[in-house]
């Protein structure tokens, strides 16, 4: 009974979800001359800077791939993850006057933030396809693994977004800590380096970081014929679903108090 009522609610609010996405895009690009090009600028500028640094300043060989392709392939999933968090975590507190006034499924706000970042990712991926053609790189037969790995990326993005957006209602410290945390996390993820270069005794640290697993394996499946470990993937997938489940439960448990606390 309780459950079926909830489902009807979600269905009734599917248009609101679309409206939230459309509203965020309108607000973001309102009076912005470059508009949607901003989706590409962040990963592209980082890629150019890294290519410059590791070609002229610290000339080292990062991998067998051309540097722009290597950097961009790591920056794409990372930008999706970090921008989603940066957008989703303050999404509830930014809409406090709505939350205090009217009932709607609050979960739509962080999810809409992720959906918008997903649109950015799709646009930014066009540059990646261009780079593949430009450097004449053919994808490996393992490339189909990209889809399940991407699912994993979505799961962890949703889990972190739900948990921290709800926590941010109680402690604004979350959002304040976010930019520092994301910067540190960026360096702890093999984006401008490869995990091969990490000494074995430290590798264990990287296995605690789901983003390291995702980005490293995305590169592996796209550019090498080394097979992806199915067992490890299934373990990560289970971990991902458990994380989403726990984050959702936390969100649900705190949702009733949002309006009182926000």
């Amino acid at each position, binding site marked *: 009974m309780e459950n079926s009522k909830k489902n009807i609610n979600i269905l*009734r*609010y599917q*248009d*609101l979800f*679309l*409206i*939230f996405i*459309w*509203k965020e895009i*309108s*607000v973001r690009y*309102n*009076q912005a001359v470059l508009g949607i090009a901003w989706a590409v600028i962040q990963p592209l500028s980082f890629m150019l800077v890294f290519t410059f640094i590791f070609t002229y300043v610290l000339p080292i060989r990062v991998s067998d791939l051309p540097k722009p392709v290597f950097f961009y392939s790591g920056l794409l999933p990372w930008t999706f993850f970090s921008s989603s968090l940066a957008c989703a975590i303050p999404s509830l507190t930014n809409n406090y*006057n*709505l*939350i*205090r*006034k*009217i*009932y*709607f499924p609050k979960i739509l706000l962080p999810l809409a933030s992720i959906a918008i970042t997903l649109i950015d990712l799709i646009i930014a991926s066009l540059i990646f396809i261009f780079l593949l053609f430009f450097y004449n790189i053919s994808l490996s037969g393992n490339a189909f693994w990209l889809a399940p790995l991407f699912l994993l990326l979505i799961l962890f993005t949703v889990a972190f977004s739900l948990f921290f957006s709800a926590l941010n209602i*109680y*402690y604004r410290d979350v959002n304040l800590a976010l930019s520092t945390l994301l910067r540190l996390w960026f360096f702890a993820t093999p984006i401008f380096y490869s995990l091969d270069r990490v000494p074995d005794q430290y590798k264990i640290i990287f296995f605690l970081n789901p983003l390291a697993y995702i980005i490293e394996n995305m590169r592996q499946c796209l550019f090498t014929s080394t097979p992806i470990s199915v067992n490890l993937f299934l373990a990560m997938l289970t971990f991902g679903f458990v994380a989403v489940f726990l984050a959702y439960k936390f969100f649900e*448990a*705190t949702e*009733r*108090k949002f*309006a*009182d*606390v926000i």
Partner: protein
Amino acid sequence: MLSSPMIELQHVWKKYSRSKIFHRSLREDIANIFEIRKDKKFLTANEFWALQDITLAAHKGETIGLYGPNGSGKSTILKLIAQVTYPTTGSVKAAGSIAPLLEIGAGFHKDLTGRENVFINGAILGMRINDIKKKMDSVIDFAEVREFIDMPVKNYSSGMYVRLAFSVAIHSQADIYLMDEMIAVGDEAFRKKCTDKIKELKGSQKTIFLVTHNLALMEQLADRIIFLERSQMLNERTITPQPPPLRDPSPSS
């Protein structure tokens, strides 16, 4: 004649915390989140009652006025009905879709145009996009903002703002309307239009909650007025029917 109530509050107590920052201690917060703390009726130093033992019911077609000084709990009752917040103890039941009229700032984004805001506001009130498109002209006409509809609402006057918000809300086809100090903002002509519209909603068997400091207006619109003071219900007054209206006043269903 009266079926089960549309809105029912039973022995509702609502506690708020006075402290600016929520966390007193992390352990207490965690206990609060998962409601481990046992005695809910116990107030800590920083807490106060916003509502104490409120019991009321509203039936189909009824208009109820909530009257009382600032801070007496009127808006808290509306928030409980709208399911924005939940009672500390007691129960709140609603048997229909609810349209709270959004006050200035809520639900509207200042950088977006009036038309865009109608979509946002309508969707928040649970309307489908197609439904909003269909009713757009009617919404604009009722609000009398036709020539400003494609202008960002940050350039609207407060009257235009409220008219648009009111107009969206009454087009949302809800069963229960919550009106918090809305009609006081518009000018004389629009207030007349609003009161006419509220009477029309009453005629179509909608349930309405009205909060205003204008007692004369409330007596004109409400069937019952509930007087609140310092978070408690003082008394309730049934308004004697107005001089016979033109239409047949007996409810059909």
